[in-house]
């Protein structure tokens, strides 16, 4: 597999982000912050909040998922989830090779 969907591209992206985060952490120490709240002025507050916040959101979402997920035809035939989109509204075309 090549291109941006490959594992290699993923690794590169991760390393690039690690570098960015490191640079932003370094920059954070040069800032004079005057936030509205004391917490905001803490060192790399936005960094750790973003990282932990996003992980926490995903974990909570994964925890509630088994209780919420049902088959697509759960409400069928009174819902569109299990229907295919009508062809008359589509313009399927394949890219030229």
């Amino acid at each position: 597999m090549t291109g941006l969907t490959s594992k290699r591209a993923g690794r590169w992206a991760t390393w690039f982000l690690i570098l960015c985060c490191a640079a932003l952490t370094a920059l954070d120490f040069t800032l004079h912050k005057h936030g509205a709240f004391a917490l905001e002025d803490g060192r790399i507050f936005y960094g750790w909040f973003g990282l932990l916040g996003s992980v926490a959101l995903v974990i909570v979402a994964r925890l509630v998922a088994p209780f919420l997920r049902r088959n697509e035809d759960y409400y069928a035939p009174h819902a569109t989830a299990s229907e295919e989109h009508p062809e008359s509204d589509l313009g399927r075309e394949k890219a030229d090779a």
Partner: protein
Amino acid sequence: MPEFLTPALPYITAAFLIPFLPQGWLRNIFMAAAPLAGIAIFWGLMPGQYNAFNVMGMQIGLMRIDALSTLFGLAFSFAACIIALYAWRVQDTIQQVAALLYAGAAIGAVFATDIITLFVFWEGTAIASVFLIWARRTEGSFASGMRYLIVQVGSGVILLAGIVLHYRETGSIAFTAMELGSPATWIMLTAIGIKCAFPLLHNWMHDAYPSATITGTVILSVFTTKLAVYALLRGFPGTELLIYVGVVMALFPILFALLENDLRRLLTYSLNSQLGFMVVGAGIGTPLAISGAAAHAVASIFYQGLLFMCVSAVLYRTGTARATALGGLYRTMPLTTLFCLVGGASIAAFPFFSGFVSKSLILSATGEEQYFYVWLALLLASAGAFLHSGLRLPYLAFFGANSSLRPKEAPPGMLIAMALTALLCVGIGLYPAALYDLLPYELTYEPYTTAHIITQVQLLAFVALGFALMVKRDLLAPPQRGILLDFDWTYRRLAPAILRLLSHVIGGTWHFGVRLTERRVANLLSGIYRAHGPLGPLARTWPTGSMVLWIAVLLGMTLVLTYI
């Protein structure tokens, strides 16, 4: 100026005219020109009220020009114009007429001076927009449209009830800021809350939007909810309850957006979360917060519209918006991918994109008023927005798993519409003064300070790092075919089940009662029959002699008693 002149008029006129025009460029030009004609009606007018007239002693007004109505009017008009370009290939008269009437009704409502006019246009948006769902012409979309119509028309009827009570209380129908307290104001807030997709009143949106046609979803995403935000900003600024409603609204849908498989439904949850920011702004009610909410509504019309356009373009070319079927589309749809990334960067509030200059106004307003937990919640919702719409959505559709789909790039009309919207997203981000100058209050806010840029980029970079690490470790919830139960389960499954149970219990009790009564009545009747029936003792024939005998006995007794 004629009394009936309103910026909605060109839309309504065009809607009546276009069925008589041949399908093709002429009709499309009419569709795109109507919003421009609408702008021409209100642009440049001095603030004030125009075209007011008296009906049954009530002051009806079709045009109120002030900063708030002009801002929303402009945003709606531009959106309607762009959507006309996006829908260039649509050759369905129903959709074209519905789109025009829907946009016209929304714009008419924005300029309404009084709540009666607001109500008329409010119901107009409901009735016109349902045809965008029914135009899909499937059994599911018909059911979905019916549910949508019931909720939307219900919202209008509730609004009308509030208006009547309000008129009885105050004797006024002017649409101005109201104090929450009387039953009338509570009822009106509920009506607005339904259209604004408040928590637990929100399901119509997630049900209907992904059930519409390809362009229908894009159109729906623009008007109804933003009209409700406008009504909140106009009618209930500074209502503290809204702050907490908004926080729940901003956070709650994130979980669904992180799990949803249907990308159009993912975006409706994302839109719901963004509306939460605006509701918080309306609730805080300071000039900065109101301006922030208005600015965010405008920015959101475009970036959310752009995201919907990208996903709809994918659906148009591939026939599916299910994340499980998509992936790797960037190879053959590079421009759509680029526009999706622009939309993602805008919703994530990346510096130099529209979300950055609008969302920060609301966050600053929470800071100014020292709502610490509200600020923290909105910051989390901000991180969440980047996670689900800026990262998960493009990852699933355009990168991520490499599907075998190799669709052609979106058609030119769609690309032009997406490019224009992307330009607006970047333009507002690069030159925020253009937006700030249109806001209801004058601002001295400077979004581009070094600290603000660096802290925001820091937040987003760490969220992106978290995302990358979770993808690498397979921690991110992988898309799965299926639906997610939401609160609508209570009225689509639970309530019918309870009703069935109740009907069973009540029916059983009734039948038991009927059987019991029948038996009693039968016993009674047979008892009477036994006594009075042909064989009963009371129906026996008595010989005349015995009657004479008894009379003789009675007479004898009377004689004896007389002499005693």
